[in-house]
């Protein structure tokens, strides 16, 4: 069965890039441009993993992470951000992994694979 990944990022270019790259790896990819949209899609069910951007207008990634972990504590969340210094934010500790964004997606794909193999 294909794994379903929810990509949450306010940058359209990045959403598309992740979608294409992850689909090539054999995953099914859902997209959300904001925190509320992501929570809506999670409500519908059958998401195996969330790829979450931190810096988004409105509800930021740390807040989305908190709500996801409250409601669906078994869905793994990978925090994804342009800025390495969020790593030390207590709010991000609840995530399953933390990835600094890069145009080279090798590391991200590797982490996704590792996490999904455990579920």
């Amino acid at each position, binding site marked *: 069965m294909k794994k379903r990944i929810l990509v949450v990022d306010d940058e359209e*270019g*990045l959403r598309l*890039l992740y979608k294409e790259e992850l689909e090539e790896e054999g995953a099914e990819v859902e997209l959300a441009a904001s925190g509320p949209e992501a929570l809506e899609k999670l409500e519908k069910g059958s998401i195996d993993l969330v790829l979450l951007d931190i810096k988004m207008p409105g509800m930021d990634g740390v807040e989305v992470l908190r709500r996801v972990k409250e409601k669906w504590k078994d869905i793994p969340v990978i925090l994804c951000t*342009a800025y*390495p210094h969020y790593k030390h934010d207590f709010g991000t500790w609840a995530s399953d992994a933390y990835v*600094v964004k890069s*145009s*080279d997606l090798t590391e991200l794909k590797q982490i996704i694979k590792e996490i999904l193999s455990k579920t």
Partner: protein
Amino acid sequence: MVSDIIKNMAALVTSGAGLRIKLRNVAWLFLENFPFDQCSIYMRDENGRGFTLRAFAGEARGRVERYAKGAALAYYVKKEGKIAEVYTPDPADVRWKRVEDRGLEGYRSVVVIPLMDGSRCYGVLYLKSVKKVVLGRREKKTLEIAVLQLVSILKFAEIILDYKEVVHDLEQARAKLLSARKMIHLGGMAAELTHEIKNPLISLGGVASRIRRKIEKDSTALPYVDRMIKEIKRLEDLVNRSVAPLKDDSCAGEIDDINRILEDSLDYFADELRAKGIGVAKEFFKGKLMVETDREELKIAFDNLIANAIQSMDKGGTLVLSTLLNDGWVVTEVADCGGGIDPRNMDAIFNPFFTTKEDGTGLGLPITSSIITRHKGVIDVDNRAGHGVTIKIKLPCAGKDKKRS
């Protein structure tokens, strides 16, 4: 009548007029109140070598504009430190007591008074009369007081000059501060901009990598795509090294070992160091050197320093990294042998956007410096022009063992 000059001089001392006008008025006051035909005020040149006429009133005869260093009466009174009263029966005579002075020509009585403040001589006052003049006791006393007032005018002018210099220096310092603030503001704007650039850049790089995988292996477009990917990677590295200064307050209070952070930074450059034939000498403190740090930020600081060092050593050489403990400070030194900084540029190296490199941003050192400052540390540059640069970073030690190593 004679006391009028004292009153008038007193008014002049504190008046708002410039020195030139004050002295001209003084010259006329002396002429009006004492029985002389000519009054000249000579000031000593700044180098003390000559006396130059600064104010003049009365008879034009025997007017001397300047006494160069020599034996004129001005030098006589300066040397003696007292008044010279000269009487010559013959107005054609220009000599008095072996002193030759062309200013004596045409006069029978001359009084030359040094303008002294303690041992300091500002100049001399010349009073000349065509007829013989004998001053009474009261006149002499009044003359002495008037001369004291003249000295106070000169001293006042000197203080004003010092004051103006101080104001000028202050204004310059203020201008410097303003431009530094502007630079900090610009630096902040640049940091904001790099933030905004990062996301589209990742998108661009990701798409370029996708193109690379989609095109045929023997496609002529392949080298172009590779070049694109390489350049995007370079921009990404640059942005990663610049994102720190958006946070302002002090750093997050984590404790970490500086040796480990340095090793991490070095790892990041391992390929580049090898490619450029640069050796690395690690002179690390044996044991942990704990500092309170935002690890990622401090790594950015070291990355910048190491990147600068590598860029300067285009002919290879050895990069020396050392750490030690000194009086509660963790000291890290990054030393290159890349020729050093042109001494003319030393004042500017911490200014945002100042760069001598063709593809430099001028943000490396300012960002590094702001990171170190946020860590309550100090950054020092030891520039050995023609040889190399050593950047010394001192951070407060967070460990229990703060003794000298």
